[in-house]
């Protein structure tokens, strides 16, 4: 019996990013080795300034690396130019920015449809996909609004819908629930669970433990380095845990 091994969805080798603004160099990512299997859901956590955004930006080709390698589905990507990266993103990667980056002079509906149209999907297909995603995220009523007319949390959900428009093989998301209240976070959690079940690979930066709790694996960054990398396992079969242990009912 022969085994065909599929390449990792994403891989970095000794990845380094040093920002050079003005005088002092700022090392933001310092030698990250990360391998993400196809279909895996990885949460990236760590304190502010630990290099999370820098890392996912490099994984999506939105920021150049200082040294090291980036591989996307078995293809070397860190050596690609801007237009080749743009093509790769369009075909394979959905990206949710920490600060949304919606197109201001287009409606919500057009923002979400655009990625599908750019890869040549039929307008009908693009519209159906848009309706589905906006519906899942509780935004059907906002389709005709301009991004500037939306709250931060609404813009964030539009950004997620846009990133998922093409059913990308890899979803990269930087704090996709950072501006959401509990109820809207639930919608996003449900949709991410759905995306994960469909086998898409997810790498997601988050401070929100509910989001991280959905992941297969959590990578923790500190000062630009991975300090922990492991599976998230149910605590239920371990002693003394569960809601009753966290919230003590008094009386």
């Amino acid at each position, binding site marked *: 019996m022969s085994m065909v091994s599929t390449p990792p969805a994403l891989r970095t080798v000794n990845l380094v990013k040093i920002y050079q603004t003005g005088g002092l160099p700022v090392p933001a990512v310092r030698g990250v080795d990360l391998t993400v299997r196809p279909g895996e859901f990885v949460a990236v956590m760590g304190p502010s300034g630990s290099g999370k955004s820098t890392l996912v930006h490099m994984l999506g080709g939105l920021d150049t690396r200082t040294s090291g390698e980036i591989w996307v589905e078995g293809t070397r990507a860190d050596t690609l130019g801007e237009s080749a990266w743009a093509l790769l993103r369009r075909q394979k990667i959905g990206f949710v920015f920490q600060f949304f980056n919606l197109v201001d002079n287009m409606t919500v509906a057009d923002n979400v449809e655009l990625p599908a149209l750019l890869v040549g999907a039929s307008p009908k297909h693009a519209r159906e996909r848009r309706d589905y995603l906006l519906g899942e995220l509780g935004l059907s009523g906002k389709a005709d609004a301009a991004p500037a007319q939306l709250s931060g949390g609404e813009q964030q959900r539009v950004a997620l819908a846009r990133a998922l428009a093409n059913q990308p093989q890899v979803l990269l998301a930087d704090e996709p629930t950072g501006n959401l209240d509990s109820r809207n976070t639930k919608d996003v*959690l449900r949709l991410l669970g759905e995306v994960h079940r469909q086998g898409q690979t997810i790498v997601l930066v988050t401070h929100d*433990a509910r989001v991280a709790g959905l992941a297969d694996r959590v990578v923790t960054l500190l000062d630009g380095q991975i300090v922990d990398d492991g599976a998230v396992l149910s605590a239920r079969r371990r002693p003394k*845990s569960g809601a009753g242990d966290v919230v003590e009912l008094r*009386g």
Partner: protein
Amino acid sequence: MRLQLLALLAKEPAHGYELKQALEQIFGDAYPSPNIGQIYVTLGRLEKDGLVRSVDVEQSNRPNKKVYFCTAEGREALLEWVDEPTEGPRVRDEFFMKLVLAPMTGIADRMALINRQRRHYLGIMRDLVELAQRTDQDNRPAQLLIEGAMLHLQADLDWLERCQEDLA
């Protein structure tokens, strides 16, 4: 559990098993399922303290059952409970004690302790997310109890992150 049982009895008289069912129904699976033996022990103590009384109710072809009801004194105790401010969150200090003290003895490394604790919290969070999905959306008390547990856990994780930044 004393005052929870007292509150239920102030609403209507009930026997032990009905109280167990009521607690489970109101708070859902997030509530540590009350043990019937514990309920009877607590009822016995409440009765001894004069906060509840019981009557034997005859049942056809079954042993009598004891129905409990809240006394005037019981109501008084309940009012006091409701009126007094509830303790704020206690610092869950056992882990913190480990974190500060264990490395001093050389038997543990702070980074490893924090990483293990984070995975543990995330595992609990995973269970809570599943529990919330399994629990009836319309059972507001149960959903809010789970949400409260999640918010507490989030605070614990944020604190852990601060510990990692400053101590490890």
